[in-house]
């Protein structure tokens, strides 16, 4: 079924009885050409682009829960392409271009809103760093505008500009940055993949990876054994457990990242605002809730819920930056399991096992990467070669010293 405005109106007039399920619920077949482990954003987009770009449709996506039940449904929905390092810069630029055509491509409203993202700075040194970053973004073909203090005030008049500790000197505006409806991204890719013949198999947990003679031959699941000679592991925070089934030890430590949403308010925050010095970022959802988050809880965790000190820290940072939000009531908070890599950058690569591919290490920046991650992972699985914009996301770069440490914070998992 093709979605359109006319369809919405017609269905509205006739009791909405004509809608059909967005995807099938197939039983697993005995064999596929490709198995993708993980039905989150990255797994679903990988399956979609395998089918769309490479014509590989005999594909199963195996999801232990329901589609989109992991980080794709537990993030702060920010889409941006403001990276600096070669390797990251071209990748996120590619992802941004895919975002800009995503709704037409998927025939699905992912509510992508390029409302502009502003990164604030609070010192001369920080300004210099942002000038440099902005130039890197422009060199990459993306957009960046340096705002002085008054320039920021025009966009964000409600900030506390004269905060004693962090007075606002200016900001780097990334006009094409913004947000999207996170669940819809998963649903749109799921529907698109399903329409092209991909089997989306839910409640199907992978319990083993079958390897013979250094080659992958299939997986064991809670719904039986499934054969395939190409298997992609796309499981974010659970990467270490799944890779361990293939005898691998990954450069990943799973950490908890909390986020928060307030009750619905009238529009007050039009942009995505990032206050790096306070580890705080915020935007307002179309439903009206203020969606905001902070930094990691800083210890390895799979609990999907955080501790109170970081809650307090995030609230303090928010009040420091924009005291007006103090009256808003927090509706709920949640935690996601972040696959933290030692340099803060991801891995899209082959493994030493023939036919086994790995897409992980998204730290807390995976949402904006969903289109390009799937695009590049599909390219890797289909052709056996890394995609041009993801060629630096190698698994062996830690051993060889080719780190992509965007923040320059060092080789420790929780520092990114």
């Amino acid at each position, binding site marked *: 079924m093709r979605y359109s405005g006319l369809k919405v109106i017609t269905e509205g007039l006739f009791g909405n009885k004509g809608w059909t399920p967005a995807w099938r619920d197939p039983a697993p077949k005995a064999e596929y050409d490709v198995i993708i482990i993980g039905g989150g954003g990255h797994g679903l987009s990988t399956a979609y682009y395998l089918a769309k770009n490479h014509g590989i449709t005999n594909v199963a996506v195996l999801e232990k829960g329901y589609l989109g039940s992991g980080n794709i449904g537990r993030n702060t929905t920010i889409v941006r392409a403001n990276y600096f390092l070669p390797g990251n810069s071209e990748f996120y630029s590619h992802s941004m271009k895919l975002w800009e055509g995503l709704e037409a491509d998927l025939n699905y409203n992912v509510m992508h809103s390029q409302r502009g993202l502003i990164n604030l700075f609070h010192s001369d040194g920080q300004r210099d760093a942002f000038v440099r970053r902005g130039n890197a973004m422009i060199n990459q073909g993306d957009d960046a505008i340096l705002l002085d203090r008054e320039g920021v005030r025009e966009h964000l008049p409600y900030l506390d500009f004269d905060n004693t500790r962090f007075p606002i000197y200016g900001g780097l505006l990334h006009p094409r940055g913004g947000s999207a409806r996170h669940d819809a991204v998963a649903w749109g890719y799921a529907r698109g993949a399903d329409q092209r013949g991909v089997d989306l198999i839910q409640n199907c947990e992978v319990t083993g990876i079958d390897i013979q003679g250094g080659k992958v031959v299939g997986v064991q699941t809670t719904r039986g054994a499934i054969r395939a000679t190409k298997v992609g592991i796309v499981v974010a925070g659970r990467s270490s*457990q799944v890779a*361990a089934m293939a005898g691998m030890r*990954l*450069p990943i430590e799973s950490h908890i990242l909390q986020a928060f949403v307030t009750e619905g308010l009238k529009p007050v925050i039009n942009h995505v605002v990032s206050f790096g010095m306070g580890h705080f970022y915020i935007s307002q959802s179309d439903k009206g809730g203020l969606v905001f988050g902070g930094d990691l809880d800083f*210890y*390895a*965790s799979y*609990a999907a819920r955080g501790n109170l000190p970081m809650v307090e820290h995030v609230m303090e940072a928010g009040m420091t930056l924009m005291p007006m939000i103090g009256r808003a009531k927090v509706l709920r908070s949640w935690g996601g399991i972040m696959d933290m890599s030692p340099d803060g950058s991801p891995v899209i690569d082959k493994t030493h096992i023939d036919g086994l591919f790995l897409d992980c290490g998204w730290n807390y920046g995976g949402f904006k990467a969903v289109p390009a991650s799937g695009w590049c992972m599909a390219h890797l699985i289909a052709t056996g070669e890394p995609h041009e914009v993801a060629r630096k996301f190698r698994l062996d770069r*830690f051993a060889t010293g080719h780190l992509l440490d965007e923040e320059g914070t060092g080789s420790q998992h929780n520092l990114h």
Partner: protein
Amino acid sequence: MRLTCPLCGERDRREFYYYGAEDYLRRPAEGAPLAEWDNYLHLRDNPAGVTKDLWYHEAGCSQWLLVTRNTVTHEISGVELVAGRKA
């Protein structure tokens, strides 16, 4: 989350700095092969369940602690001094 420091008693999590998995205690010998250094610096078991990791009692006795805890439930089942453990 609260940790019971062997020297200071039960304290708020904010007094402690988390460093990482206990792998950091197994530093390779000088001149060890690069693979061992990669293993030590980057690769982790990253268990969903009981793990041992290093915490530093920054706002207390300044001791490094080896904490046994569950990464799924956040339950703490043991805290010992790194300096006092048997090799």
